[in-house]
C-alpha cells in the first residue's frame, strides 16, 4: 500500500524551550514571534539571538520555522520592518506569516522569504485566495469558518497551499474583525493586546428576561477525529494554536497528532484512542468548530458546560510569605468568602476558602480587580507559580 502524503504538523513555539519540545515531539514546523510585529504580545517571544538558535535547532531536526509578522501594523511600525526582515532572511527562516497587505508588499520588496497569509486576514473563499495569491502569498492560513472540504476547493481553484487550524483556542469573532478589547481596555486586539473580552461572564437582557452566561466564549477546537479527512482532502498544513500555552501542552498535543498522522498515512487506519491524550492538558470543552459544518450553538459554552467542571483561572501565586499568607496576581475577579482551587506542583489540587482578601496594607477587599495583587490566607503545599482557579463562576 502506498503511503499517503502527510500534511505538515505546525506547532506553536512561545519561547525557545517550547520550540525544542515541539520539534522533539514530532512537529514538522513551528511558528514563533519576535519581539515585535506579532499578535501575542504577552508571550515570551524570541530575541534575535533566540530566533537564530531556534532556526539552527529546527533545521538540524528537519523542521521548518515560520515567524509571525501578523499584527496590523501602523506606518511607524512598517518603517521598522526592514532590518528585521533582512535579519530573518539572513538566518534562513522558512516563511513569515503576515496579515496586512502593506506588510506583504514590504516583505516582497525586501526579501525572497515565502509569505503565508495569517488567519487574521480572514480569507474565507476562492476569490479572496486568488486575490492574495496575486499579491505574492504562497500559502493561506484559512479563517476558522472554512470547512475541510471548502479548504480543499480553495486549494484546487486558487492553486495555492492551504493551512488550517486543527486544535486549540478559538476566537468567537471572525479573526481580525473584533475590537471589543480596543474599546474596553484600550488594547488593540489586532496588534497583540487582546484582553479576551469574549471570555467574560455577561448578563444578557432581552424584553425583561435576564440570563448570565459566557455567551461569547468559544469552545476549543479539536480536529483529531478528522485527521483522515484532513489527509484525504490534501490539506497542506495543520496548525496547533497556543504560543501562550505551556511546554506540557505543546509536547502532549504535538506527540499525539504526530503519531496519529503518521499512522494514518502509513496504514490508512485511524487510532481514536490517541485522542485521550488531548484530555490530559488543560482545555475548554472541545468542538469541531466549522471543520465539517458551520459552527453553531454547540460550539459555545453554556451554563451547563460550566457546571460540568470548567475552570476559570483567577490568577497565580506570586509569593508564599513565611507560611503566613500568599500573594496573588489577579487575572479574573473573585470574592471574599469564595472557595478557590490551587493547582500545586506535587500535591494535587488544594481547596481554599477565602476568609479574607486584602491588599498589601491589610485593607480589606471584597471583590478583586484584574491587574492587581492581593493577599489571601496561607495554604500548606502551595508554591509560587501555582495557578489559582475556580470551578465555574457564580
Amino acid at each position, binding site marked *: 500500500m502506498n503511503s499517503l502524503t502527510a500534511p505538515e504538523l505546525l506547532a506553536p513555539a512561545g519561547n525557545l524551550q517550547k520550540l525544542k519540545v515541539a520539534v522533539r515531539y514530532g512537529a514538522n514546523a513551528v511558528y514563533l514571534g519576535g519581539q515585535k510585529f506579532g499578535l501575542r504580545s504577552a508571550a515570551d517571544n524570541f530575541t534575535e539571538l533566540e530566533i537564530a538558535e531556534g532556526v539552527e535547532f529546527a533545521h538540524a531536526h528537519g523542521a521548518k520555522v515560520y515567524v509571525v509578522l501578523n499584527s496590523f501594523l*501602523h*506606518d511607524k511600525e512598517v518603517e521598522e520592518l526592514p532590518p528585521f526582515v533582512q535579519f530573518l532572511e539572513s538566518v534562513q527562516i522558512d516563511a513569515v506569516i503576515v496579515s496586512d497587505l502593506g506588510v506583504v508588499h514590504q516583505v516582497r520588496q525586501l526579501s525572497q522569504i515565502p509569505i503565508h497569509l495569517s488567519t487574521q486576514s480572514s480569507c474565507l473563499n476562492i476569490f479572496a485566495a486568488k486575490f492574495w495569491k496575486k499579491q505574492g502569498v504562497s500559502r493561506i492560513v484559512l479563517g476558522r469558518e472554512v470547512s475541510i472540504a471548502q479548504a480543499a476547493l480553495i486549494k484546487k481553484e486558487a492553486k495555492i497551499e492551504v493551512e488550517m487550524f486543527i486544535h486549540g483556542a478559538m476566537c*468567537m469573532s471572525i479573526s481580525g474583525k473584533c475590537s471589543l478589547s480596543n474599546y474596553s*481596555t484600550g488594547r488593540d486586539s489586532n496588534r497583540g493586546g487582546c484582553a479576551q473580552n469574549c471570555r467574560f461572564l455577561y*448578563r444578557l437582557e*432581552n424584553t425583561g428576561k435576564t440570563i448570565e452566561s459566557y455567551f*461569547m466564549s468559544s469552545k476549543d477546537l479539536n480536529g483529531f477525529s478528522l485527521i483522515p479527512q484532513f489527509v484525504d482532502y490534501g490539506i497542506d498544513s495543520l496548525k496547533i494554536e497556543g504560543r501562550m500555552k505551556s511546554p506540557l501542552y505543546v509536547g502532549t498535543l504535538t506527540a499525539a497528532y504526530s503519531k496519529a498522522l503518521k499512522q494514518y498515512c502509513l496504514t490508512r487506519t485511524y487510532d481514536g484512542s490517541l485522542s485521550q491524550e488531548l484530555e490530559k492538558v488543560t482545555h475548554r470543552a472541545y468542538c469541531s468548530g466549522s471543520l465539517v459544518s458551520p459552527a453553531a*450553538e454547540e460550539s459555545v459554552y453554556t451554563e451547563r458546560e460550566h457546571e460540568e467542571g470548567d475552570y476559570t483561572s483567577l490568577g497565580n501565586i506570586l509569593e508564599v510569605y513565611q507560611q503566613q499568607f500568599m500573594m496573588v496576581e489577579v487575572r479574573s*475577579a473573585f470574592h471574599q468568602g469564595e472557595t478557590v482551587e490551587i493547582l500545586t506542583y506535587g500535591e494535587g489540587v488544594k481547596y481554599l476558602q477565602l476568609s479574607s482578601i486584602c491588599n*498589601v496594607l491589610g485593607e480589606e477587599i471584597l471583590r478583586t480587580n484584574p491587574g492587581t495583587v492581593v493577599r489571601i490566607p496561607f495554604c500548606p503545599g502551595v508554591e509560587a507559580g501555582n495557578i489559582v482557579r475556580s470551578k465555574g463562576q457564580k
Partner: protein
Amino acid sequence: MKLITYAESFVEIEELKHLGVLEILLAPKSISRFSTLADDQVIALAQHARDLGLRPILVWDQLMTDASFERALTQLSSLLPLFDVVRVYDPGAVEYLFVETDKQIQLLLELSGHNLAGLLVWQKYLGSRLDRIIPSYELDQETLKYFRSQLSVPLEVYGLGPLSLSYTPRPLLTPYFAANNQEVIRAQAHTEEVHQSDLTIVQNQHGTFTFNGRDFSLVEFMPLLQSFEINCFMVDLRHLHQELRKKLFISVMNVMHGESAESFKSLYPRPTFRGFFVKNKSDAVFSKLKNQKRDRQLGELLAEVLDVSKGKYLGAMVRHPHGMQLGQAIMLRSPEGKEKHLVINQLFDAAYLPVAKVAKDHLAYIPAISGMSSKALIFCGTSH
C-alpha cells in the same frame, strides 16, 4: 465634503435629494450585514434614486465562505444591473467585482489598513476601478490627514453611527432568546469583568454582532475633516426612529456648513464617543504589552511592577539575581516610556514590613510613585 447616508424608503430618498445629497447607500439584507431591506425593495429604491438623479451605491459588506458567496452571486444577478458602484468588505468580493464585472468598487476597511503602504497597493491594483476608500475608523486625525495627502483616491470617513465591535457567523443569542423565532434578536450585555459600557448584541441571518454602548461620532470634527479635504462623511442613522433621522441629518449638515455642534449634540438621542480620532492610544498600550522583553534588554532589569495603589504603594516582582536593596539607585520606566530616577529610601516586603533587601522572585514594595503604573519596569540605576 459630501454627506452620504443610507436610505430605506422612497420618502427618505426624496428628502435626501431635496437636501442636496448626491449619493445614497442601499443595503439589501441578503448581502449586507445590518439591513432589513429585501432585494426587491433595494431594486425599487435604486431605480427611484436613479430617476431622481442620485447615485445609488450597493452595499455588499458581508464576509463569506464559498457557500455564502455562491448565494450572494445569485442575489447579485438581479441587483447589480441597477448599480454602477458597489461597496465591499470581503477581499473576495473585491476580486470578484474587479475580475468578473466592470463596476466601480468602494473599499470598506473598518479595522484594517493602518499603513499607507497597504492603501497604495489597493490604489495601484484596482486603478481607475477604485472609486473610494473608507479607511479604518480607528485612524487618528493625524494619520487621516496624512493618508489624504498621499492618496489620489477619494476618502470617506465613517462619521456618525453605531460601532460594530465583533462579527461572528455563529448564532449566539438563539440559545437564550429564540422563543419567538424572530429573524433578528437583540439583547443588552453587561459585564463586571472590565469597565465598559453595555453592549448591544444583534443576531440576524449573517450571524451575531456586538455594538458599542455609545455611538461613534466625528460630527464635532467636521470642520477639521473638511480642512483635510476628506471627500465624504458617512452617517448611519438606521438604528434610530425614522422621524428623528431627517432632523439629525439636517443638524449634521448645519455643522458641516459651519454651525456649532452643540445643537446636534443636544438632539442626538444616544451617548456618543469619538473613538481613537484624537489620538490612537492603543499604540502606547501596544508597546506596553509587546516591548516588555525588549525593554528588558535596554538595561539591567531589576524588577517588574505588578501592583499599584495611587498615593499608597508600588509593588514589584524582583527579577535580578542580586535582589533589590535599600539605598539602591533605580530607574523606573513606565509602559509609556516615562522614566524616573530615584534612590530607594523605603523598602518593604510582601507583609509591608521594612526590610533592607528583597530577594529575587519575591515581591518588593516601595511608596507609590506618580506616573508609574502596573507593568512598569525597574532597572538598576547608577551606583549611589
